[in-house]
């Protein structure tokens, strides 16, 4: 661990020096990595920075891109949202990076968005998010709600027979929107109001006694109940511990989580969690050739045999390869040309299939449901029969059902209202 830090700080020091001298800049293509390395989000984002370094390293070993070497530019926005915008501006206008891979939280993406649009950069965003957005300059390689939440609910409803729902989330925009969509979806499927319980908690909530007890009571009516959890980050550990201790087993009330992956599990004693579910587009346990290659590469790159892979890493893998392919197709790293070229580009994902970039800047992905195993891995118990296309604008929200995104000419609009035939909310000329 220590060596990897030392190494990455040496790398970044070298980068800083290189950036200052400016002489080499012409021979390399710079790739910006915008992930928090300190502060509250470092826990999740540091891994993604390392993933990007690995992908760039591998690409360079393959001979780089357009005959040039790729050069990673790592900055630390320190989990501070305004700093994300500032660092994005630094990457685009000072370092002149060809593309930025980064951000985890929605708010950091919202903060960066005006900057990439103003400077016409490219941002690859690797995390599942609430949707309701499609920017000319952003490529959403994580799941939209219809690529994670809705299939998960379908699974619970159809395969497990769940009839009562607890939508528990951290109080911020992703859970709020996801739960709004799910609520509308469930009601459309005939679930009554009294069979839906919605609960929000603050970030890092650690005392779950009352809420778990309430869930227990809610679930004791003899009707199959499930918890759809959009609980974020650190709050999960005490939540699952409390679930285990109050005796809510996965057989009684399964919890399906959208923010708990292998990396999160590596910090949790998984014994009480066994059987609970997660919905992702990728699991480390997936048996595919591409995946085992990726896992081996990752373990040897990070020099730690215990490290795990997770869904946002796969999203970066997909996003990076799409960008590489689009640049090769366009023959240039020019932002406009890449934006044109990347739509329709299809690259292998890690679950044995292909993912393609859609005109709305989202990608196609399979949706997998996994059950947590004692060893901290997921066992896939269900998966969609084919790929699911990411939907930028939910069909289940009144404000957005009439909006579509299509970045191809002639529409070339991220939120086109089919009713009013107007394209609004764009920050570019």
């Amino acid at each position, binding site marked *: 661990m220590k060596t990897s*830090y030392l190494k*990455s*700080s040496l790398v*970044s*020091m070298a980068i*800083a020096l290189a950036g200052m001298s400016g002489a080499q800049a012409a021979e390399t293509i710079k790739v910006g990595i915008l992930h928090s*390395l*300190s502060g509250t989000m470092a826990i999740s984002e540091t891994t993604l920075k390392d993933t990007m370094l690995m992908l760039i390293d591998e690409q360079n070993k393959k001979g780089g891109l357009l005959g040039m070497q790729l050069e990673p530019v*790592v*900055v*630390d*926005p*320190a989990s*501070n*949202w*305004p*700093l994300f*915008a*500032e*660092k994005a*501006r*630094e990457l685009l*206008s*000072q370092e002149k990076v060809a593309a930025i891979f980064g951000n985890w*939280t*929605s*708010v950091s993406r*919202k*903060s960066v*968005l*005006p*900057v990439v649009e*103003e400077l016409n950069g490219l941002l690859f965003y690797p995390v599942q998010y609430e949707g*309701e*957005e499609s920017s000319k300059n952003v490529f959403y390689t994580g799941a939209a709600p219809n690529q994670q939440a809705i299939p998960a609910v379908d699974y619970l409803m159809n395969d497990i027979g769940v009839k009562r729902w607890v939508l528990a989330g951290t*109080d*911020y*925009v992703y859970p*709020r*929107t996801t739960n*709004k969509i799910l609520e509308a979806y469930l009601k459309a499927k005939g679930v009554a109001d009294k069979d839906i319980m919605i609960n*929000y908690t*603050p*970030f890092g909530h650690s005392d779950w006694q009352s809420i778990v007890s309430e869930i227990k009571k809610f679930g004791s009516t003899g009707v199959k109940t499930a918890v759809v959890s959009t609980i974020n980050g650190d709050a999960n550990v005490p939540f699952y511990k409390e679930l285990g201790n109050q005796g809510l087993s996965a057989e009684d009330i399964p919890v399906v989580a959208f923010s708990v992956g292998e990396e999160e599990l590596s910090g949790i004693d998984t014994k009480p969690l066994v059987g609970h579910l997660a919905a992702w587009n990728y699991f480390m346990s997936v048996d595919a050739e591409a995946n085992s290659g990726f896992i081996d590469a990752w373990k040897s790159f990070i020099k730690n045999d215990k490290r795990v892979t997770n869904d946002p890493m796969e999203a970066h893998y997909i996003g990076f390869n799409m960008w590489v392919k689009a640049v090769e197709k366009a023959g240039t790293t020019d932002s406009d040309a890449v934006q044109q070229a990347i739509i329709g580009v299809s690259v292998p994902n890690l679950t044995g299939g292909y993912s393609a970039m859609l005109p709305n800047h989202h990608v196609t992905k399979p949706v997998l449901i996994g059950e947590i195993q004692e060893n901290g891995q997921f066992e896939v118990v269900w998966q969609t029969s084919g790929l699911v296309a990411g939907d930028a604008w939910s069909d289940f*929200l*009144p*404000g*957005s059902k009439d*909006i579509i995104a299509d970045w191809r000419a002639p529409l070339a609009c*991220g*939120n086109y*209202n089919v009713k*009013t035939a*107007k394209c*609004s*909310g764009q*920050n570019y000329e």
Partner: protein
Amino acid sequence: MGLLNLLKQDRGGQLFLGLLALAAVLVPLLNLLPPEGHALHLSTYTVTLLGKYLAFALLAIAVDLAWGYLGILSLGHGAFFALGGYAMGMYLMRQIGDRGVYGDPLLPDFMVFLNWDALPWFWYGFDMFWFAALMVMLAPGLLAFLFGWLAFRSRVTGVYLSIMTQALTYALMLAFFRNEMGFGGNNGLTDFKELLGFDLQADSTRIGLFVVTALMLALGYIVCRAIVQSRLGRVAVAIRDAEDRARFVGYRVEHVKLAIFTFSAVLAGIAGALYVPQVGIINPGEFSPLNSIEIVIWVAVGGRGTLYGAAAGALMVNYGKTYLTGALPEVWLFALGALFVLVTILLPRGLIGLMKTRSKKGGAAA
């Protein structure tokens, strides 16, 4: 004339205002005249960055007024800063009008997708700049007045007061995180388009904002300097050093504290309002107790009890932060932590204090 009088004895202040004036002229020129790529060219990125630093410097001056001169170590000035920022952010949100992603003419985007059907009452009036400008000062001012009135009257002082201010900003942070509050929850307010009709993404607007911030900083400095030099300022220092004595001499300590604390909060609010259009986002993270402590550190590093020292501290620490988070991200927290420790132990009067004692040993002026 009054101004000259004010600055006559203030060598540091003269230097500070001089440099500020120079920056206000030179920065726009270097940005506009030399072509991009020229060695002297100052990128818009740098201009905005400098503008942010100047807003922080104003905030540091506000904190120094309360801490350095009145002895109130506020660990909640970030809250006043953020409130000012939110007031400005609300104005900017209203200016988006129907250009939001949902095209709603009245409601900001976050309200549309969280199904608000009407604008909450506290959002009324923010479509007018004068109202927003008033709220920039009034919101933090009123909060400071209310808090100060309660706290000073019951003689909560020293450490207790600091902890209470920290609790205040913490409670506000939790409150603003709540989506039900109607301030955009964790995402806060973002995606601003224009300010007073000027496109916020235009370079000219950025330069304009920089110049305005520099002017407000200069003005803030001069007003604070005037307060500090007045008898009221000396009473404040008297209260800082011997509160009981000031009371028995007949000063209403509570009122003096309240007045200066409230003014300091208003100043912090103005700084927040200048900060928001330059960084393009305001969110509850600004209320975090950590931020407020960091502000205090800027002041401590620069040297408290000297207004320009506080401003200089803000500029230095923030430059260091920008540099280190870019160059040596892993080292940044070590550096900041070590700075806190070293400054408090070795430089109780900050870097300015160090320079002062170097230049004239045993000088009388405080």
